[in-house]
């Protein structure tokens, strides 16, 4: 069952992401110059040769570790066995049982981290998408300073993650940071200086940073997509008396739909898997209210040196992402065909 879902999950992204590129039949090309038999043979092998380097590296860095990870999750791979991990005892599914035993502290912490990540991802993706869409629509028409503004908006995306996040970490310092200075000393909105990087507020701090970093990406993609919408459509609509809001709803948003399908998925996967932002913002141990799943797994593995449990959690995470991606693509594709 799981495998079947996983199968669709893997197949679908290609359909969505590569959509529209396999249109023209390129297999049989007329007018291809006549070659000798050896030439034909070479042509048969050539694409594989061209793909070989990419394939080798992908196998080494992505696929082999994935298999190794699945194997590791079935072993008791603690610090004790790390030097010679092939000697670690097999424990079957025990790592998984421990991971999903929600009555025990370890399982409860994982569940908590998972729920935080889901809530966080929904909010962050929603806000990033909203800001990106609004900005892209407002910047569709030419006006003075548009080019400069576009460059400014793209800066957060261009900055190296760690440099940007460190700046935010400085701004969120309780006593020396800009945020508290603004909220408490300048605007007098709060009486007391809150902590931002520990406790409940850390969720909102992390959300701010992630949205700040990822909305420009949404903006970039949507802006590129809007360039393909013919101006005549808007002119025709305007002549028919459609207002701005109507034009946005009837022309802009529908023509962005195929892009949105991919964009939202990509934003979801990036946010859900984000490690760097919480890692740089909070250090090795994130506060419970901002304990994203990646950092939780990192901690379970490298801080406690229990690689077996860490691998089991990673495999569970992967299965979850496959199921969500597959479900998302099935639902959105169906809606698209239904609407068309």
């Amino acid at each position, binding site marked *: 069952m799981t495998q079947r879902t996983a199968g669709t999950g893997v197949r679908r*992204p290609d359909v969505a*992401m*590569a959509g*529209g590129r396999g249109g023209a039949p*390129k297999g049989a*090309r007329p*007018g*291809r110059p006549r070659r000798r038999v050896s030439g034909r043979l070479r*042509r048969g092998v*050539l*694409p*594989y040769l061209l*793909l070989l*380097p990419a*394939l080798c*590296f*992908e196998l080494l860095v992505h696929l082999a*570790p*994935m298999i*190794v*990870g699945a194997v*590791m999750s079935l072993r008791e791979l603690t610090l004790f066995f*790390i030097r010679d991990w092939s000697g670690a005892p097999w424990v079957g599914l025990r790592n998984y049982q421990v991971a999903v035993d929600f009555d025990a502290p370890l399982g409860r912490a994982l569940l908590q981290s998972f729920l935080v990540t889901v809530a966080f991802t929904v909010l962050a993706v929603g806000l990033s998408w909203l*800001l990106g869409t*609004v*900005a892209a629509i407002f910047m569709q*028409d030419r006006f003075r300073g548009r080019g400069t503004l576009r*460059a400014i908006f*793209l*800066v*957060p995306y261009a*900055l*190296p*993650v760690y440099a940007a996040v*460190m*700046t*935010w970490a*400085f*701004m969120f*310092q309780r006593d*020396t940071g*800009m945020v508290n*200075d603004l909220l408490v000393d300048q605007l007098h909105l709060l009486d007391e200086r809150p902590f931002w990087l520990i406790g409940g507020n850390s969720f909102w701090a992390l959300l701010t940073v992630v949205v*700040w970093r990822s909305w420009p990406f949404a903006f970039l*993609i949507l802006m*590129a997509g809007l360039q393909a919408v013919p*101006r005549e459509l*808007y*002119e025709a609509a305007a002549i028919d008396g459609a*207002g*701005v809001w109507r034009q946005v709803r009837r022309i802009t948003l529908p023509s962005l739909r195929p892009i949105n399908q991919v964009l939202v998925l990509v934003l979801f996967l990036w946010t859900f*898997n984000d*490690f*760097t932002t919480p890692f740089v913002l909070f250090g090795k141990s994130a506060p419970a209210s901002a304990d994203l799943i990646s950092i939780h797994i990192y901690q379970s*593995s490298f801080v406690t040196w229990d690689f077996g449990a860490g691998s089991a959690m*990673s*495999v569970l*995470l*992967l299965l979850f992402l496959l199921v969500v*991606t597959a479900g998302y693509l099935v639902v959105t594709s169906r809606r698209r065909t239904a609407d068309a």
Partner: protein
Amino acid sequence: MRRRSPMAPPAWFVWLRRVTLTVLTVFTVTPVYVMLSSSLKPLRDVQGSFQWIPSVFTLRPYVDIWHTVPLARYFVNSLIVATSATVLSVVIAIFAAYALSRYRFPGRRVFSVTVLSTQMFPGILFLLPLFLIFVNIGNATGIALYGSRGALILTYLTFSLPFSIWMLVGYLDSIPRELDEAARVDGCGPIGALLRVIVPAAVPGIVAVTVYAFMTAWGETLFASVMTNDSTRTLAVGLQGYSTQNEVFWNQVMAASLVVSVPVVAGFLLLQRYLVTGLTAGAVK
């Protein structure tokens, strides 16, 4: 081509646009301002309550950053790793994209699906096994992969590979096949056609992919924090060295952040047009 119709947008729309874009600009720019202004502050300004304007403008932090931590070494490491990973990744991606765009062969779909789907997996999933694989290869063969720049280059090049291939396939598909045919008639082999005709025609796409690959490698933190040692440490990890047990030299952190950001941000902004073109052809078609 982009002339706005006879019907100018209504006044409320223009005002809403001004307000919204202003708010977004403030949100976007504030951290950049904090970074810039704090990098020009003396240490006492960043230790007390926040100063919007430095009490004294000083370039001291820009001098100190090179001594507090071996920033130059981190810089060189990052440069070597990111450049090598980018060059290799782009070359490999061009070959792969050419095969996927111009040939139909068994296994083509499986390849593209497999490679693309690795993009969705969390880095944390590969980190532990890859760490163990490198350590074990090291133990078995004596080649010290773990902690070396080579291992990091290898890892980073595969990070940008899937997206680069995907974007380039889209771009190559938009280059008319007649170009290949013409090159073939002129006596080029398939590789000759790729190098002499396709690559020059695909420059915007290749630039876009190069920018993307370099940014990916330059900013990566997770693998850098696990797979490097003192001598191979990159900026992503090294920049965290400006804090001691008791205090953080925030003015130096900001100065260093700015110094490591300038090359990528400048490159990105200069080449963003290509990125939009590349995305339009590849991703957004």
